[in-house]
C-alpha cells in the first residue's frame, strides 16, 4: 500500500496529542481510509474491520505522546492497525478451524470458467495465511516483522506464505502442467 502523507503533520500531531478535536479529526480524515483498507484485508468481516478502525484510532489518540517521530506517522499508525487487526483474528481464532479444505471447493483446472478471481481466492485463505500474504506481499513487512506481530517465528511466516501461494496458484488455475 502506498504511503500516506498528512499535510501539516508536524503541526497537527502536538495538537491531537493534547486532545484538540479538530486535529484529531484531521488525523482521522487522513488515515481512516488506509486504516480501514488494511483492517478489511486482514479481518474476515466489514464489522470486524470497523471495530479495528475504532480501536486503532483510540490507541492513536491515547498514545500519540509516545510517538517519537523517528519513522513516518503513517508507518506508526499502520503498525497499530496491523496489531489490532491481528488481535481481532486471535480473538476470532475459531474461524481458522473453518478454513475450507483445499479439496472441497477447488474448481477443477479443466474448467477455466470456474476459476476464482484473486479477490475470491484471497478471501478463501485462512485468516492467518491471508494476513501473512497481505502484510508481506502488499504492505512490505518482512518475515521477521510478521513473526513479531503474530508472536510466531520467521519460519512460521515463511511457511504460511509459501502454503498460501501454493493455494492461490491452484485456485487461480496458474499451476504449471507437468
Amino acid at each position: 500500500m502506498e504511503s500516506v502523507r498528512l499535510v501539516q503533520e508536524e503541526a497537527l500531531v502536538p495538537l491531537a496529542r493534547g486532545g484538540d478535536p479538530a486535529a484529531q479529526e484531521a488525523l482521522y480524515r487522513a488515515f481512516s481510509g488506509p486504516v480501514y483498507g488494511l483492517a478489511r484485508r486482514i479481518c474476515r468481516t466489514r464489522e470486524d474491520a470497523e471495530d479495528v478502525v475504532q480501536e486503532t484510532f483510540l490507541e492513536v489518540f491515547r498514545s500519540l505522546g509516545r510517538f517519537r517521530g523517528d519513522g513516518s506517522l503513517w508507518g506508526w499508525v499502520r503498525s497499530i492497525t496491523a496489531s489490532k487487526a491481528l488481535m481481532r483474528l486471535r480473538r476470532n481464532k475459531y474461524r481458522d478451524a473453518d478454513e475450507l479444505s483445499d479439496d472441497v471447493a477447488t474448481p477443477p483446472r479443466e474448467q477455466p470458467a470456474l476459476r476464482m478471481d484473486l479477490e475470491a481466492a484471497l478471501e478463501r485463505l485462512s485468516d492467518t495465511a491471508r494476513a501473512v500474504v497481505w502484510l508481506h506481499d502488499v504492505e512490505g513487512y518482512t518475515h521477521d516483522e510478521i513473526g513479531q506481530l503474530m508472536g510466531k517465528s520467521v519460519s512460521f511466516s515463511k511457511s504460511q506464505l509459501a502454503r498460501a501461494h501454493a493455494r492461490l496458484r491452484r485456485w487461480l488455475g496458474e499451476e504449471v502442467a507437468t
Partner: protein
Amino acid sequence: MNHLTLEQLLDLREPGLEPGQAAAREHLADCPRCQAELDRLGQRVARLKALPAPRPSRDQFREIRSRHVAERRRRSAARSVALVLALAATVALAVVLRPGAGPGDADPGSSAASELAAIRAQSQALEETLREYNPDSRAIDGRTAAIADRIEDQLSSLDRQIELLDLMNLADPMRDTRQLRLWRERVGLLDALVDVHLTRASYAGL
C-alpha cells in the same frame, strides 16, 4: 531435474542473499519452467498490490471521539483513586514502621494486620494502574500476550490459595504469616504484569 520449490522461489524474491540461494539462482538461469513460475509469482504479487482498496462504509469519527473523551475521564478518575490508595498504603506502612514501635511495643497480631492492610492497599493500587492502562483494549504482540497470560494464570492460582486460606481456621497461628506471604507474592506478580505491559508499550512505541 529437480525444480525449485515455491519456498525457494519466494526466498529468491527476498532482499539479500541467503545461504543456499546461489545454487537456486544457478538453477533458475538454466530452467525456463522455474523462470516462468517466478514470473507468475511476481505477477500474482503485482495483482495483489493492484486490488482496489476497500473503502469504509461509514464515518466513525464521532463515535471514536466520544469514546476517547469518556476514556480520558475514566482514566483521570482512576488516577485519583490510585493516588488515594497509594497514600493509604504509605500511611499504613508508616504506622507499622513508626520509630516508637519496637518489637515488644505492639501486639504482633495487630502489627501483622497493619502490614497485611498495607500490602493489600499496594495490591489494589497496582490493580488500579492496570485498569487505568487497560491492556485488553491495547495492541499486544503474541510474545507479550503469552507472558501476560502466564502471569495472569499464576495470579489466578494465587487468588485461589488466598481464598482457601481465608476459609481456614482463624486460630491457626501460621495463618497471618501465610497470608502475608501470599499477598506479598501477589503484589510481586501484579508488579511484573504492570512491568510487562508498560515495557511492551515503550518497546512498541505506543
